[in-house]
């Protein structure tokens, strides 16, 4: 310990302090700051480059999936359009058919009506004809019946008989 204390040189201590202090300040300004800053910049650059690459990768993946979705949608739309067209065509045919049916029925109904009317006219004419004929026949019969007195009497009695019987 005595040797140690004797070996201790205050002058060297002072010189060392001065040199170390100057060295720290010098190195900080001209070496460590620029070096550490450059290192940090480089590390940040590398990190951001990696991040950017990752983002680009993600974007590409997103774009791909978006494209696929678009394609799917387009396909679905096409299918829809085709389906719609088919439906429309079918409906049109159906409509046409229904219309034709209705028209035909209308025509038929008209015809039937006309026939009925004609028939009714014919029947009424026939009725008139028959009525006039019947009147003529009845006139002729009555004329013959009422030609003699006997016959008038017979008839009157007969009628009376009928009334009595009733």
């Amino acid at each position, binding site marked *: 310990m005595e040797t140690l204390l004797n070996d201790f040189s205050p002058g*060297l201590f002072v*010189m060392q302090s001065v040199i170390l202090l100057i060295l720290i300040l010098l190195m900080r300004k001209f*070496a460590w700051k620029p070096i550490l800053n450059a290192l940090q910049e480089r590390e940040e650059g590398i990190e951001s480059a990696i991040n950017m690459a990752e983002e680009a990768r993600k974007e590409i993946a997103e774009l791909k999936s978006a494209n696929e979705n678009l394609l799917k949608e387009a396909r679905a739309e096409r299918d829809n359009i085709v389906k719609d067209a088919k439906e429309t065509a079918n409906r049109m045919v159906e409509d046409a058919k229904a219309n034709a049916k209705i028209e035909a029925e209308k025509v038929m109904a008209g015809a039937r009506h006309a026939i009925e009317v004609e028939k009714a006219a014919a029947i009424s004419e026939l009725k008139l004809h028959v009525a006039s004929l019947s009147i003529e026949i009845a006139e002729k019969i009555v004329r013959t019946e009422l030609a003699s007195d006997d016959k008038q009497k017979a008839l009157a009695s007969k009628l009376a008989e009928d009334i009595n019987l009733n």
Partner: protein
Amino acid sequence: MKKIKQNFGLLLGFICLIFSTYSFANTEVKHAAKHDATHEEKGPVNTPEKINAYIKHHLQDAHSFVLYTDGATGKHIGFDLPVILLDNGLHVFSAAKFHHGEAVAESKGSFYKLHHGKIYKTNKEGHLRMHGEHPLNYKPLDLSITKSVLGMLLTGLLMVLFFGGLAKSYKRGPIPTGLGRALEPLVIYVRDEIARPNIGEKKHKKFMPYLLTVFFFIWILNLLGLTPLGFNVTGNIAVTLCLALFTFIIVQFSANKEYWGHIFWMPGVPVPMKIILAPIEVLGMLTKPFSLTIRLFANITAGHFVLMSLIALMITMKVAFGPVASTGMSLLLSTFIMLIELLVAFLQAFIFTMLSSLFIGMAVVEHDHH
């Protein structure tokens, strides 16, 4: 958390090993110094005493940069560093004036002598009043550009060049080129493995300049100590104390209310316990920088000591095993220790920074519970 525990286990092992060798080494050094204090180190370094003195000399700071000493002539190959003393004014002169402790240096009418790496104020004849092995003479504040200061300046220069270059390279593009490419992972390591987990995502940024500076400063200095240039900066208690005090000051100044609350008035315990706990917590606050100081100092000093001792095996074992076997043994062992020291150089820088950030983290953490 598991990782930290592992590190602590490893550290504990190292500390045990190192303290045992260090205390052993220290007694040896003292013993040797008594023998060797009087006469100058001339001639080849070939006895255990001289080797110990040589190692001790190396572990100390020096005022000249000696790469090689010719043992026969006592001639040093290297260069002298400027001496700056604060003693009734500024004294600036070259350490050549000391002649490696052999001569008295004169500056502005004052006389100074170098004794075991320290400068003492003396009279004209250079007389030192000795007390045991230490002189009692006045020691002026020594602001010299010593070997350690030179090492720190060199490290600072290297750091500014290396990391300034790295900072500039980001202006050319996001990925650095050349040396920066090797340095960048280290900066990221300190940020992601040391600062972030200990201080937290939000607050670590403020402390990054300090932690990074300290980490690389200690590491480079430790590595510099392993080169044949012979620096031993982080094995200098003044240096490690300064580093630890920086951490201490930063911790105290960035501490929030809860940190102080936990020290002086521990929440969630009865009042008598609060009173007992306060001094313990204050002590704990003060032991943290102390442990930082001693850990780094002891590890590096011991590393240098062990490495030099193993190199010295070549000489001390020559008689017993012959030159070839002793050299081979020394080479093998010192290579092994060198590799361990390379690891320790990093480990100690890591642990110092890690513990600093841990202490800072403890001071700035926001508790949700209680």
